[in-house]
């Protein structure tokens, strides 16, 4: 199933300006699991009539894993080129479904000449719900379901966004159960700081196994996430406990996409 999506170049060619640029990110573009999140979010935007564009082939890694592994040169090169592209199109507002992209675009690009209004997709969804643009089914698929929410580090502690994703979940009438470690005290999934791309150091267990166990302890049927890396890590953690048939890890955008009113 294809999604109707226009690129920034297409908008520019037709002389139109989109409402917002959807920064897809590397995971959202290439990782099969994360692609489903990307499509879900694009479908929501299409359904409610948000005029959005993507950079398409012109998008490149923000440089987050490079910078956090210590490779500042590579980060600066990626940032230089991305800012060139974004400023070339006169981009003003960016929405992204990845908290790592969100953090770096919002907080670290301005020092390099990239100044945009950057918004995470969970905050964007919350705003669309509040404005009445996204309308959710009464008695949707998640009504009354026991759901726990995993705060990603770069949305939560990194940028103090704890409530917007929870408000979206509440709008779907879910029964939200918190983990012992949540909000400012939330535990990492183990992927940040470029850990996603290497083996963990020697330890007693893996970070994602530990975090998934904490999520399973709540007895929730769905673990709601806001980050493609967390989604992957927690899914692996749930599999490790052989609970994948009972417990699903879902991005909040996927849940909203399934709950849209006709």
């Amino acid at each position, binding site marked *: 199933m294809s999604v109707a*999506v226009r690129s920034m170049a297409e908008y520019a060619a037709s002389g139109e300006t989109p409402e917002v640029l959807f920064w897809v990110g590397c995971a959202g573009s*290439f*990782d099969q699991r994360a692609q489903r999140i990307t*499509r879900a979010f694009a479908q929501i935007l299409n359904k409610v009539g948000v005029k959005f564009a993507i950079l398409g082939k012109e998008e490149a890694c923000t440089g987050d894993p490079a910078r956090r*592994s210590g490779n*500042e040169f590579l980060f600066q090169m990626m940032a230089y080129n991305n800012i060139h592209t974004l400023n070339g199109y006169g981009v003003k507002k960016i929405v992204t479904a990845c908290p790592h992209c969100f953090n770096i675009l919002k*907080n670290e690009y301005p*020092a390099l000449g990239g100044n945009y209004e950057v918004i995470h997709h969970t905050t964007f969804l919350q705003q669309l719900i509040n404005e009445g643009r996204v309308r959710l089914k009464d008695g949707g698929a998640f009504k009354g379901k026991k759901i726990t929410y995993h705060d990603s580090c770069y949305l939560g502690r990194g940028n103090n966004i704890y409530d917007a994703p929870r408000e979206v979940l509440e709008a779907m009438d879910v029964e939200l159960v918190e983990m012992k470690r949540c909000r400012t005290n939330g535990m990492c999934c183990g992927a940040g700081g470029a850990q996603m791309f290497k083996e963990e150091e020697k330890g007693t267990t893996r970070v994602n196994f530990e975090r998934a166990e904490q999520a399973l302890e709540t007895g929730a049927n769905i673990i709601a996430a806001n980050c493609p890396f967390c989604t992957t890590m927690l899914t692996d953690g749930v599999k490790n406990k052989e609970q994948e048939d009972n417990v699903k890890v879902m991005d909040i955008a996927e849940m909203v996409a399934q709950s849209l009113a006709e």
Partner: protein
Amino acid sequence: MHLIQQILFLICAGVAIYIFSKSVVRIRRNINLGRDEDISDNKPQRWRNMVLLALGQKKMFKKPIPAFLHLAVYAGFIIINIEILEIFLDGILGKHRLFAPMLGMLYPFLIGFFEVLAVLVLVACLVFLIRRNVLHVRRLWMGELNGWPKTDANLILITEVILMTLFLTMNSCDLVLQSRNVEHYTVTNAFWITSHFTPIFSGLSSGTLVAIERSCWWLHILGVFAFLNYLPYSKHLHILLAFPNAYYGRLIPQGEMKNMPEIQNEVLYMMEPDKAPAADAAQEHKRFGAKDVQDLSWKNLLDAYSCTECGRCTASCPANMTGKLLSPRKIMMDTRDRMEAVGKNIDKNGTWQDDSKSLVHDYISVEELRACTSCQACVEACPVSINPLDIIMQLRRYLIMEESNAPQEWNLMSSNIENNMAPWKFSPDDRDAWVNA
């Protein structure tokens, strides 16, 4: 007799203050071993943070039990210092309970209040000793605290127990002596706590009581002087440095990493060579990232001196929770140890002489640094705005950019980002393939 005591007191006070001021100069010099960093913005917010975090102990209350015990010791420490002022002036002027006639009815009320605090401090310190040595609370009983750090912690607590006991014994004897109208012992109303202890001492002769009272008075104030000079060598230095550290704590979002303008410029000159300055104007190479304490910012070093090794950072670190070597507290302890070693080297040789050691490798291992997920839980957990993550990231930058020291997987990741614009080996042409997938 009084004159000799006064002279002795002045000598002790003078020596204590002199040694302490030398320590202050040394600590200041050590902190300034770090690189310059301008932290002069947004003063109102900084004052607010200092009041909330240091004075108000806002973050301590995430753990209510230790928070209340700590509050008792902290309030006791600050408020009982008013009493130290009287003791100090009595010592200089050869008086006894100088404030009693001035404050009248208020005086026994004040001293009674101090006594209540002293009892609270005493109880809290005993509970702290039990938590450390009997209950073995995990964050207070980890391997990295073996040796001096554990001894340091116990010494602090025992000293406070002794000081409070001396203070209460002194007041008890004083009350008995007052009731006997012994010369020099100004009569006040009974103090709230020690008035219940007088029966213990009432069987003793006035001469013995004066001896005990004077001994306690002297031991107490000498103990205070000694403790003051112990602080610079102890984790307990946090009682002073928590305040500036909270003031200078970062105000930008925790997720934000500091920019490196020198590398930003290198990339700019590579992309737009016309903007590059003439070759001879090129600046001396400053090491990329941090290999040693001199490469860190002075704020990182102030952080290290402000750390009281409570381990809230390590208890919340996902790497540490899952058995990895990394412990943010150890990062701070190592930074302080290295900074003090560098300081001693300078004291001994006049200037810094290379000792063929560095913070990376000799104090903090590569394995520890690699395990960090940059989740900022350590930064969030610290009650006094210490940022271990900032140090970890600077050391990582040094490893990658100066030593090309990276695991093979990270080299692959970097070459993918460089060539395929993504950390995985996908064709950049497929970046929008999800549209039709």
